[in-house]
């Protein structure tokens, strides 16, 4: 069966997803230390965050530099709903996401009228307001120290590290499936149309304003989900979740992984989470090397790791195809090689 929107056999489209699942599920058996498990959890969490950002920026072309704000808002809501309102986890989680969505709607409706640099700056302002308030509203947010997150309990038992990890993997798989569904459907196409030429998209019947708001809210909720995950893994929520370094990570993951690709977020997250571990041995040079790598990726790998893998795939299959001599049959429907 051919997947019509990517023109490649379905098994090929599913393959990376299955690979991800297999690797992710096997990890606890392969790794021994809790620290390493935590790292992989972080990869998944950043992957979720980036998939949301990717939908908004990579596919829909809306540069939002305030998504770290949603990362923080949902986490704070999750903490406060449990600590101050006494809600159980099963209620706090969805409610936090709802709050996140509401904020996104309130912010999105006026903001999405802006474009490019102005949208970037306005969303950055939003992010700065959130982190500013989080740092200062000591009574509610705990100030710079943040708040402690109660551990998740099922019945009377605290959920242990491995189970938590599996929950996070499940969440990542869910978001990944959701992303892939959107991207391979007419929704993904309409987002890309908005990115490439929103006037023409409107002329073809795409309700640009509504679609932009929808993807903004969705990506904010996904960012919020990642935020809650981060807070649960770190056992605390702090203002640093809404600050500049998170934005830099998001942008780096987008650049390194490849904007507007399905697996770019995961690939980018692996690099962005793992690489600093190797960089610490350079001590003081860490920042410099990080910046240099980011720049090199930007210049030489515009489509990121995902793009590089695709080109490799195409080069390989092209070489295979060239082994068989081309048959001159112009009337027949042309079957392209194993495709995009």
């Amino acid at each position, binding site marked *: 069966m051919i997947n019509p929107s990517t023109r490649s056999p379905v098994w090929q489209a599913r393959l990376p997803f299955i690979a991800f699942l297999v690797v992710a599920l096997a990890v606890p058996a392969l790794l021994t230390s809790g620290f390493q498990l935590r790292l992989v959890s972080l990869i998944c969490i950043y992957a979720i965050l980036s998939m949301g950002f990717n939908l908004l920026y990579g596919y829909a072309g809306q540069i939002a530099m305030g998504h770290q704000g949603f990362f923080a808002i949902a986490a704070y809501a999750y903490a406060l709903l449990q600590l101050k309102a006494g809600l159980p986890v099963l209620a706090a989680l969805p409610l936090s996401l709802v709050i996140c969505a509401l904020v996104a709607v309130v912010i999105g409706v006026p903001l999405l009228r802006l474009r490019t640099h102005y949208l970037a700056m306005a969303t950055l302002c939003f992010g700065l307001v959130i982190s500013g308030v989080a740092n200062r509203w000591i009574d509610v947010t705990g100030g710079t120290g943040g708040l402690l997150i109660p551990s998740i309990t099922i019945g009377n038992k605290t959920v242990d590290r491995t189970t938590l990890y599996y929950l996070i993997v499940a969440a990542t798989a869910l978001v990944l499936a959701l992303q892939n569904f*959107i991207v391979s459907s*007419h929704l993904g196409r309409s987002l890309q*149309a908005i990115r490439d030429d929103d006037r023409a998209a409107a*002329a*073809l019947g795409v309700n640009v304003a509504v679609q932009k708001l*929808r993807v903004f809210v969705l990506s904010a909720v996904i960012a919020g989900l990642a935020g809650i995950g981060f807070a649960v893994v770190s056992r605390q929520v702090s203002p640093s979740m809404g600050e500049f370094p998170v934005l830099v990570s998001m942008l780096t993951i987008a650049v390194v992984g490849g904007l507007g690709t399905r697996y770019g977020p995961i690939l980018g997250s692996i690099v962005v989470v793992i690489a600093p571990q190797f960089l610490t041995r350079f001590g003081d040079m860490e920042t410099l090397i990080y910046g240099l790598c980011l720049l090199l990726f930007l210049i030489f790998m515009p489509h990121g790791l995902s793009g590089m893998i695709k080109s490799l795939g195409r080069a390989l299959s092209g070489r295979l195809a060239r082994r068989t001599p081309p048959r001159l049959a112009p009337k027949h429907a042309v079957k392209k090689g194993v495709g*995009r």
Partner: protein
Amino acid sequence: MRTQTASRTPIDAPQLMSIRGGIKRFGGLVAVDNVSFNVRQGEAVGLIGPNGAGKSTTFNLITGVDGLSAGEIFFKQENITKTPLHRRSAMGMARTFQIVRLFSGLTVLENVMLGFHPQLVDGFIPSLLRFRKVAADERRCAQRAMELLQFVGLAARADDLIAHLPHGQQRLVEIARALASEPGILLLDEPAAGLNDEETAGLGRMLRLLNDDGLTILIVEHDIGFIMGLCHRIVVLDHGAKIAEGNAASVQSDPKVIEAYLGTGGAHAKN
């Protein structure tokens, strides 16, 4: 020259689209000055005029890209003057642009598939709930899009990126995309611009075929020969106002039209 043959004259056909008293001001400049004309079902109407006559602006008014300063537009007997741009497409208006506006990040096939957008499930949550329908729709759209590409002769390039296509082929993709929505009226803004003689002839044949099949066409063009060969009726604009209307013969011999063109270098008239 396209004459109205007795067997298939659209004269009595119902009005599909009409613009009445259309006025568009940009600051102090009146780009479209009280323009009224209609297009009947099954007709091919040409909109011509020297440079700066207001043809593209009129087009933008009809399709909703620009808003009217005064006047009304009717489509299928409905007043669509206030209808937003994206809804006019769903109502059956499809258009191409003077400068090809394809989506550079999508392949040729995906571009054409976008033409189906208004017919597909609207919204993220409804799509999620009806995921099976979405998948089936995707297959159906891909198939239909391939058929359209076959019609314009570009099936072989379905998976190519737009940037890899020469200008003439990009035009054809744009037309295929416009046809995807099975429109009631196809509006073409200078489709022959940038095409060589062979491509222009091929385009003319294709449009003729579509119109014979019943597709209503409104076309803006500089190439008067192209218009004469395709259109039942021609509307002539000059300086934003309508100066003549009629079939090819009457328009060609209209002294006002001749003056408008000669006055601004009427070497455009190829016939």
